[in-house]
């Protein structure tokens, strides 16, 4: 019983990670960059929800739509201003600008919204009872939504023209360009999708814990990135798997008092162990340079 409960709690934690990891993996897989600002786009999405809920239209669904739209615009803007000029430069340069963008978003948010954390109550969904187990509804919804998003993304990438173009860009930018694919356009679309996913992640994070500050996305962002790497970065199902795995590990670790304070260390240790066993993550594709 307790085991099932802990697993469920793990799913609850992990579904949020999975949602963020999906965004990481999309951007990484196609634009080939560690978007350290992804977590801060989540935070912006959170503030958009806050604005909506504080306005006359206090409806979470409208808030979500608003957040998605704003985040997509923000994502595209960031890409155009900070990342696009560096296409073709070293990935390290892009990594550093991503960090710069992350600082920029955090301090802008503090300037606009102040330093105090905001309370954003979206919906009170209550619990469902399963044979003596109380499961919060938001856990089920987050889990369900992340599975749906994962499936939609997979189908999108596999079966639409844009999606296939994305795979082409991912495998070889130069060749894709030669085949008439608008590489810049595809990368812009990727950032739009990634940022929309960030907005969703923000929504589900606030659904669970209604406290919003300008560092909302920082640590979950890193954890989710770790999850994406565990699952095999670039792999959409891998992101989901990695996220859930991280969540379950976290839940188990928190359950045992002796190791609970070391939870972060344990999560990162698992990452190292998994990478040592499978250097490309669980579902990652091993890429080998041709000699």
């Amino acid at each position, binding site marked *: 019983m307790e085991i099932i409960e802990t697993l469920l709690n793990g799913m609850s934690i992990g579904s949020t990670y999975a949602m963020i990891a999906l965004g990481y993996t999309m951007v990484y897989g196609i634009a080939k960059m560690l978007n350290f600002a992804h977590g801060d786009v989540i935070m912006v999405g959170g503030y958009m929800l806050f604005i909506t809920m504080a306005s006359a239209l206090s409806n979470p669904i409208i808030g979500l739509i608003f957040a998605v739209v704003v985040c997509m615009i923000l994502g595209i803007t960031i890409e155009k201003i900070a990342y696009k000029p560096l296409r073709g430069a070293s990935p*390290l340069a892009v990594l550093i600008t991503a960090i710069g963008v992350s600082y920029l978003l955090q301090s802008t948010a503090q300037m606009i919204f102040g330093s105090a954390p905001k309370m954003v109550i979206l919906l009170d969904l209550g619990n469902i009872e399963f044979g003596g187990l109380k499961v919060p509804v938001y856990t089920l919804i987050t889990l369900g939504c992340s599975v749906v998003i994962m499936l939609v993304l997979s189908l999108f990438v596999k079966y639409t023209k844009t999606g296939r173009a994305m795979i082409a860009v991912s495998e070889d930018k130069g060749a894709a360009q030669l085949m008439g694919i608008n590489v810049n356009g595809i990368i812009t679309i990727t950032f739009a999708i990634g940022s929309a996913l960030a907005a969703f992640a923000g929504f589900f994070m606030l659904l669970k814990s209604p406290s919003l500050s300008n560092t909302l996305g920082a640590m979950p962002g890193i954890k989710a990135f770790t999850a994406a790497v565990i699952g095999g*970065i670039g792999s959409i199902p891998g992101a989901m798997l990695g996220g859930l795995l991280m969540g379950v590990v976290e839940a188990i670790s928190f359950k045992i008092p002796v190791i609970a304070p*070391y939870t972060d260390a344990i999560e990162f240790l698992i990452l190292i162990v998994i990478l040592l066993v499978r250097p490309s993550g669980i579902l990652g594709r091993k890429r080998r340079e041709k000699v």
Partner: protein
Amino acid sequence: MANMFAKIKWKHFINYIVVAIAMIVFGVMSLTGALSSSTVYLLEKIAIAIILAVSLSVVVGFLGELSLGHAGFMCIGAYLGGKASLLLEPVMGDGFLTLIVSMIVGGAIAALCGAVIGLPALRLKGDYLAIVTLAFGEIVRSIFMNTKKESFGGSLGLETPRYDKDILFIIAFVFVLITLAVLQNLIRSKHGRAITSIRDNEIASKATGINVTKYKLIVFTISSFFAGIAGVLYSFSNYTVQSSKFSYNYSIEILVMVVLGGMGSINGSIIAATLITFLDVKLQTILTGDLAVLQDLFYALVLIILVIYNNAPALKGFRETHNLKVLLDRFRKHSPADRKDDEAKWDRVPTKISMDEVLSVDLQPQTTYTPDKPKKEGK
């Protein structure tokens, strides 16, 4: 005699000379009491930052591996060196001897950890190695965070003795010189060539008989040794060592110094470390009260603009005509025979720090993906 003098490669020594002169100038100023304590703190911080940046530069700029765990090694040095000095203080006093022994303890243990983390480096590629080093740093931080109060101070941090602040910054600069000497001598030797060859082309390097494993381990070990030394200096320049300081954010800050300084340029790392630390401290102390929120904003803007300016392929033409070097060249006659030693132009470093994974939607892990690139020039 004059001939011998002319034969010395002055540009190899220019950074020693500059650092030594700065050290002497400030040392004299400190003796005459002309140095304010805020400048002393600043100097200590700059010295520590230079050691960190230069030691990371060897990993990132010369070996071509991305490490996001440099702060972790520093953390080990700071805690263990600090603890060593606490234990030694009753026996050996708080003098120079304690300092040196603590340095060796902190540096050596950090180096050991560097070797341990260097082992996975042999298996993992750039970006995966980066995340492993990041994870390592976070593990170290988390462990020290949760120690018992008696052992390493727990969440409140370890209280360490602060070294005499009129002298510490001079010692710190001496260590900067030592770091420079060791790392530059390493780089400017056959071993340095082997290391740079790994960065430039690992496959060719192996085929040329370079023991890549050995050199990766050497570089990780030496680099973390100096990170550990920087950590011990940090513990001597502060009353408390708190592990929350050594998060991945700090590692990234060091990385920023290396990247802004230019890959494979030690002088660049020194200048970037100095300027960033200076900017950081000045922003922090000048922007008081309500203005404090502008610090990060300003820092972020500087970062983005500098990186784009330095790296954007579209600005290449502009960079080549409008840069500091061109400006400096106006003051000296440019001889085309002058060629930078082992300095890799940043935009040409074929980074192994590659983002290489391919988007996939498959549920089955696939064994190998070999990109079949067309030959550059067919026949």
